[in-house]
């Protein structure tokens, strides 16, 4: 039996697997950020300095000290007070879109490794969209305060770099020719 699909171009195989791995990590990261924003609401306990519960048996179970337990409340409060009013809604929206696009990039990566005809163009669109989402997020965080910036900026910058490199790779690869050869069965 012969397979008439072209043999995967080497660049597509490399870029595809990278897209899949980063796509999985990004779905997880964006999903977690979405969960974080949903959970930490402005009118929740940490914002009002309500007393924390730090029983000794649970501290032992968690392997944390009393100071750490108390710091956990401060950690959440730091997010609440340094987050502008618009940020939570904005981030929930952006992360929802980001999670979906990241999921899509996994399929694009699969299509690249499987070397579908539409894959190179889809890769350019998908990776550029991811970079655009990162840049929008970066700009938003820049417009918050120093506590939010120290939390987010480096990670977002890293993703921008990754997605720009992947976009460049997709663009360069699309300009190269694929190896067209029937596979012997």
């Amino acid at each position, binding site marked *: 039996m012969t397979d008439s699909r072209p043999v*995967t171009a080497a660049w597509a195989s490399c870029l595809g697997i990278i897209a899949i791995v980063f796509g999985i990590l990004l779905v997880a990261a964006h999903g977690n950020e979405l*969960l974080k924003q*949903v959970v930490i609401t402005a009118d*929740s*306990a940490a914002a009002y300095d309500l007393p*924390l519960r730090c029983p000794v048996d649970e501290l032992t179970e968690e392997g944390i000290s009393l100071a750490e337990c108390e710091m*956990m*409340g401060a950690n959440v409060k730091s997010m609440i007070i340094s987050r502008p009013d618009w940020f939570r809604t904005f981030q929930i929206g952006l992360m929802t879109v980001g999670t979906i696009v990241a999921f899509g990039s996994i399929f694009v990566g699969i299509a690249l*490794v*499987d070397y579908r005809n539409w894959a190179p163009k889809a890769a350019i669109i998908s990776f550029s969209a991811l970079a655009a989402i990162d840049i929008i997020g970066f700009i938003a965080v820049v417009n918050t305060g120093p506590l939010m910036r120290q939390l987010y900026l480096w990670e977002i910058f890293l993703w921008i770099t990754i997605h720009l490199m992947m976009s460049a790779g997709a663009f360069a690869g699309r300009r190269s020719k694929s190896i067209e050869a029937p596979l012997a069965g």
Partner: protein
Amino acid sequence: MQKPGYSKTAVTMHWLLAVSIFFLFISSWWMLALPLPSADYRYRVLPFQLHKNMGMTLIMVLAVLLYVRFKHRPAPETSHEMRPWMHKLAVIDHIILYIVIFACCLSGYLSSAYSGWTTTLWWLVDLPDWGHEDEELNMLFSDIHLWTCWALLALVSVHISGALYHAFRNDGVVRRMLRL
């Protein structure tokens, strides 16, 4: 005739597992830094319930994957790139991976069962409270959960390294798990 790659169901279950496992890792590192639960501090409720729900679902996903994988075996790998030692390493890694995923999920569930906290599957089905509140058993299974999950992370790294190797060699091995 055996197909050259895995079935679509196996492929779907595999990638569902992959995305879920990484989400569970990243979200667990965050949620363990949230304040301990109380009547006022309820930050941990949703993330922990979601974590448990996903963990229990992953056991079912793994069961489906294993069933489909063995019922519809793909054709043996014929790439000349795949040396015997690579094949042996892949088989060993896969077997240990399945065992560790199962152990990680099961120990998490057992830890929860002995913690006194109730579990509702996806906020729809109340699971029976067959376990009793037992601090020692809770901590035992919690430790097992922790160490099996670290082992899982290490094994997944080996697995991904292997996939990257084959993809960079462009030898067709990875395409077996990448069929749309």
